[in-house]
């Protein structure tokens, strides 16, 4: 990447590349918190009320929202890269990408509705 003079003929690869890394950093910072919280609940270190106190505050909901947007964007770009590398038949690749995009967007909307529907 260092010293590259041109970004290639597609002209939009750098955007994906950059967003993939930006979202990676957001996920790397927030995902361990979510996973440790899950393990603490699994272990019985936190009961349901203590866990809800941590996640249903305004800050918890905001961080969770930030995490899910970064995570789903990161997942979309990552799976897109793999599909573009290995699925050469356009008639298969394009519907796959469409299904992936709509599927992840659907999960994102559901996920947001779960987070913001918790009674405060």
């Amino acid at each position: 990447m260092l010293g590259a003079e041109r970004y290639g003929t597609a002209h939009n690869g750098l955007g994906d590349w950059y967003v993939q890394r930006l979202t990676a950093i957001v996920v790397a910072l927030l995902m361990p918190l979510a996973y440790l919280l899950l393990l603490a609940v699994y272990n019985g270190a936190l009961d349901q009320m203590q866990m809800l106190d941590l996640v249903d505050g305004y800050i918890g909901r905001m961080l969770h929202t930030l995490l899910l947007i970064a995570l789903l964007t990161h997942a979309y770009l990552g799976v897109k890269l793999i599909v573009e590398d290995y699925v050469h038949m356009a008639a298969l690749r394009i519907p796959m990408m469409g299904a992936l995009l709509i599927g992840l967007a659907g999960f994102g909307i559901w996920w947001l509705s779960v987070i913001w529907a918790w009674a405060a």
Partner: protein
Amino acid sequence: MPTVKRPSYSRPLSPRLAVYRWQLPMIASLAHRATGIILALFVPVYLFILTGLTGSPDDFIRQMAWMHSVPGRLILWLTGTALIYHLVNGIRFILLDAGWFEARDSMRLTARISVGAGVLGALLLGGFLW
């Protein structure tokens, strides 16, 4: 659309797994993709767990029972291991993009660290879950 003259030989359009000799940095890269797919597939499972744990007290008890069942533990173990590996190797990739550890020897050493972290994470998480 202009017609493109294709060369008589077929050039590789993507990483050709069959022609390269297997090496640790290549395995680390492939494992990053494989764990990424596993983590993408975990998104619906995460939502299932989240709705259960934050639902009614009965939902919570049911979800905890599922998480402690054998399939639940296996899924948490597999995805947790994938997460640890993907996190460590993801940091490695970002450092590589920044121009650090690009020499062949350090590529191999850092790949070894990523894979080692994945194995260690798998063992620790396994110990925690069982």
